[in-house]
């Protein structure tokens, strides 16, 4: 078995609002990502995907608060660290994060090389500016990015180029885990493809050793990641290999999501898109039983009363539903 790069067990984090209300945005989430593998996280807006990403970095600044569970990066526990220590020793070197609007993060008054100097010197003060420039040049060439970008300002770059530059900057220290939070959703398809190619190159060349890819674009997730986790109201409701999760989902929510996929392929027009009625529950007061029960067309009174446990089945798959898999499949067959 390959080495486990990221091992998360029963992680629970919450936001505390200014009215002192608790919002349980990540609730008992467990998963593992092995070396050389990638995990995709899918789900609706507001289901806790981005909060999970922030939580994984040990970056607990108000209003986000760590509650329980463990996060091990290559065997090293990071939940017991202070946020500032985590930022110094974990962020960048162990785990890198690309936020959704990463390309807007570049200070317009600085040249690209300055950001790279910042990142490297924050972790290793012994490096000279020349060392850093050589290192940056080598990395940019390996990733097929023109090296003259280093001496340009952000405004001189196109959207897609800016995004790729930010990815190159954030992975300059070869982190063990890369968290990409919707890295291509602001780009058009051609730039998106180049960003994905670059992420694949990073993985192939060993500059990153595992990846978490967050998006609500399921066709993209299907093509990019090895495994897919479907998140709903702060919980993982299904985890499994990408192919099976997309084509043979077990959980009713995953099934609903997969039916909302639109792709320009023959036969796609004849398919009826299925929207899941309703909206996700308010996480200030999560419902007592299964969190999806209110919107699930297969729900029974039992679902609203009993909290569903996460059941693991063979082949790396698991789901969170009151019903056993056979029963769900039977229900789907008659739906």
């Amino acid at each position, binding site marked *: 078995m390959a080495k486990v790069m990221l091992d998360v067990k029963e992680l629970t984090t919450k936001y505390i609002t200014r009215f002192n209300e608790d919002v349980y945005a990540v609730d008992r989430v467990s998963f593992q990502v092995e070396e050389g593998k990638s995990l995709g996280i899918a789900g*609706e*807006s*507001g289901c806790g995907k981005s909060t999970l990403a922030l939580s994984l970095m040990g970056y607990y600044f108000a209003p986000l608060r760590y509650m329980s569970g463990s996060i091990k990066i290559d065997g090293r526990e990071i939940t017991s660290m202070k946020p500032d220590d985590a930022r110094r020793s974990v962020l960048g070197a162990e785990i890198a994060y690309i936020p959704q609007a990463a390309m807007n993060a570049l200070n317009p008054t600085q040249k690209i090389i300055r950001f790279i100097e910042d990142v490297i010197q924050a972790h290793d003060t012994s490096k000279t500016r020349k060392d850093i420039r050589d290192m940056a040049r080598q990395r940019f060439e390996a990733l097929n990015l023109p090296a003259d970008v280093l001496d340009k300002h952000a405004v001189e770059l196109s*959207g897609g180029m800016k995004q790729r530059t930010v990815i190159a900057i954030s992975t300059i220290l070869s982190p063990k885990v890369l968290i990409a939070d919707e890295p291509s959703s602001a*780009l*058009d*398809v*051609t730039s*998106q*493809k180049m960003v*994905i*190619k670059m992420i*694949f190159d990073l993985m192939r060349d060993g500059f990153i050793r595992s990846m978490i890819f967050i998006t*609500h*674009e*399921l*066709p*993209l997730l*299907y*093509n*990019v*990641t*090895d495994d897919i986790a479907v998140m709903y109201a702060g919980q993982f409701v299904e985890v499994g290999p*990408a*192919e099976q999760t*997309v*084509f043979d989902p077990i959980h009713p929510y995953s099934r*609903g*999501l997969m*039916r*909302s*996929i*639109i*792709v*320009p*392929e*023959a*036969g*796609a*027009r*004849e*398919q*009826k*898109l*299925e*929207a*899941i*009625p309703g*909206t996700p529950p308010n996480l200030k007061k999560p419902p007592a039983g299964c969190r999806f029960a209110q919107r699930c067309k297969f729900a029974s009174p039992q679902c609203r009363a009993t909290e569903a446990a996460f059941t693991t089945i063979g082949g790396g798959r698991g789901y969170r539903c009151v019903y056993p898999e056979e029963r769900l499949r039977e229900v789907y067959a008659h739906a």
Partner: protein
Amino acid sequence: MPDIMMNGAAGRDHVGELCLSGKGVTKVYGMGARRTVAVDHVDFEFRKGEVISIVGESGSGKTTLVKMLLALTSVTEGDIYFMGGKRDITTRQKKHDYWRGIQAIFQDPFSSYNIFHKIDAVLLDCINMRGGKGFSKEKKTEMMSEACKFVNLEFKELTNKYPFELSGGQMQRLMIARIFLLQPRILLADEPTSMIDACSRATILDMLLNLRAEIGMTIIFVTHDIGLAYYVSDTVYIMERGRFVEFGGADDVILRPSAEYTRRLIQDVPKIHEPWDFTKRSPRAVLT
């Protein structure tokens, strides 16, 4: 109500006479060395009840074309024809009359509303604009409830609320409720679903297409999502650098593209049943 999702051949049955067309429409920004031709002599014909998609990458001129169609910017050259005659927006009143026939939904629902107006006021405005100023209060409330019901919102829960208290998907649905009340002849939807997730996207598309069936409206989608264009449209126009490089029935353009640019655009979209360049897995058989 007909099953509008099957809008391939079936959808074209209720396509009627010409409602919006253009000849040699051009927009030039700047002059001298900074002269940029954003839209370059485009011709188009949109018919009543038709769903049209204009697809192109960022910077291809889609939004400039939308602005010209909405009379938000001037046309440098060429003519736009509306409901059989040349479009006349020479006076403020004529422009207002034109806007009664053509309405828009924009990409960002968060910046589409006046933050000082409550939801009731937003909807009341639409009723007044359609000549309902003299209606009784009960009648207006009934109309607003009906519009909200159409988009699966509960009017009672929305009264006295501001648009920013809603989620992105709800705001976009409220935008459709406005269209339901305004009943324009043409709806321009500029990337209406690009800021909301895939699940709410299905709901929004469903509602827009229901609305077309209900009031026989023409819908023009402007998008870079070629999958969405294929799914909803009768006719697809592909735009590159200010020109239409290809147009025709959705099946012809998407499944049998003739322009190199269209082929490349389709190739770049991640797919699940057909191969994609960087896919980690072999493609599965086409849907059965």
